């Protein structure tokens, strides 16, 4: 099934985007990427460790750029300025102009600062970035981000790293019905059924990290996430049957020979 995800000028064959954090090692990470079928992966930017001259494998060297598009994030940024700095550093690193924008409001919940995210989106879009903006499951901020120039809006399913799934499907549906840019559920996805739920709602994609990296068997879970994404997407495209309050027999009533 050719059913690509388009964000700005970028086209991805997989509707799943996964991270590079919290894996045991690079080999496990690469095995999970392979199993999940993704072609876009997220990374973070951090200070070089000055105590060790970096001769060991750097993440940049590990990623096959022919196969994977790198989506750098601004994770850990609490101000507009820090998010802008991080995006510019990522571009200077040669990662292009895709940016997963996060402006976090609170350390304990890692919930986003919606107004700061809108302001940062406007600035980065003006600078030519393709902004995928992480936000709350809030239709008002999602539409504000779209208006500010986000190429995709990424409402959380649940708090980052919580694995609680899609906590407010009603709000996600409202966002989907009103937005014109792709909607990608980002954060809170704990297992394959969570991906399927998001995709069945009609989301354009799902971004997750910890759900695979912290599974007991991450590679197995990466396969499962892929299957969940495919199942949910196909169910959405198929269009589910209407719900009803009472039973309806699936075998004919007419012609019964039993009492």
């Amino acid at each position, binding site marked *: 099934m050719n059913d690509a995800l388009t964000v700005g000028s970028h086209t991805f064959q997989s509707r799943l985007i996964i*991270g590079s954090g919290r894996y045991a090692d690079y080999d496990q990470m690469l095995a999970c990427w392979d199993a999940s079928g993704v072609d876009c992966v997220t990374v*973070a930017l951090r200070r*070089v460790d*000055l105590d060790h001259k970096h001769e060991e494998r750097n*993440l940049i060297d590990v990623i096959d750029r022919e196969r994977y598009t*790198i989506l750098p994030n601004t994770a850990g940024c609490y101000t507009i300025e820090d998010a802008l*700095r991080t995006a510019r550093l*990522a571009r200077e690193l040669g990662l292009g102009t895709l940016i997963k924008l996060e402006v976090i409001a609170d350390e304990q919940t890692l919930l986003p600062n919606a107004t700061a995210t809108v302001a940062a989106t406007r600035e980065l879009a003006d600078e030519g970035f393709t902004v995928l903006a992480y936000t709350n499951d809030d239709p008002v901020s999602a539409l504000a981000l779209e208006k500010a120039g986000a190429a995709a809006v990424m409402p959380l399913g649940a708090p980052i790293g919580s694995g609680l799934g899609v906590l407010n499907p009603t709000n996600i549906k409202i966002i989907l019905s009103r937005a014109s840019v792709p909607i990608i559920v980002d954060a809170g996805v704990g297992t394959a059924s969570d991906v399927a739920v998001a995709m069945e709602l009609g989301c354009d994609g799902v971004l997750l990290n910890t759900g695979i990296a912290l599974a007991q068997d991450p590679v197995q879970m990466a396969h499962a996430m892929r299957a969940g994404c495919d199942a949910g997407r196909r169910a959405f495209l198929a269009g589910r049957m209407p719900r009803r309050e009472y039973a309806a027999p699936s075998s004919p009533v007419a012609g019964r020979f039993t009492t």
Partner: protein
Amino acid sequence: MIVVSVNGDDLELEAGTTIGALVDRYVSDRSRVAVERNRAIVPRATLDEAQVEPADVIEIVTLVGGG
């Protein structure tokens, strides 16, 4: 000698040290890092011309795993 901050550590450097030379102390391949001085990007092409100034705050960053 002048004192600059590099990735949060104060460092004494000879006046006239280029930011390129500073980066080379820590990384073997400049393409793996991006450099910022006082919150503004130092483009890779200018690293060998840009000299450290007293009280500069320099950040040398690279990619790490993240979600």
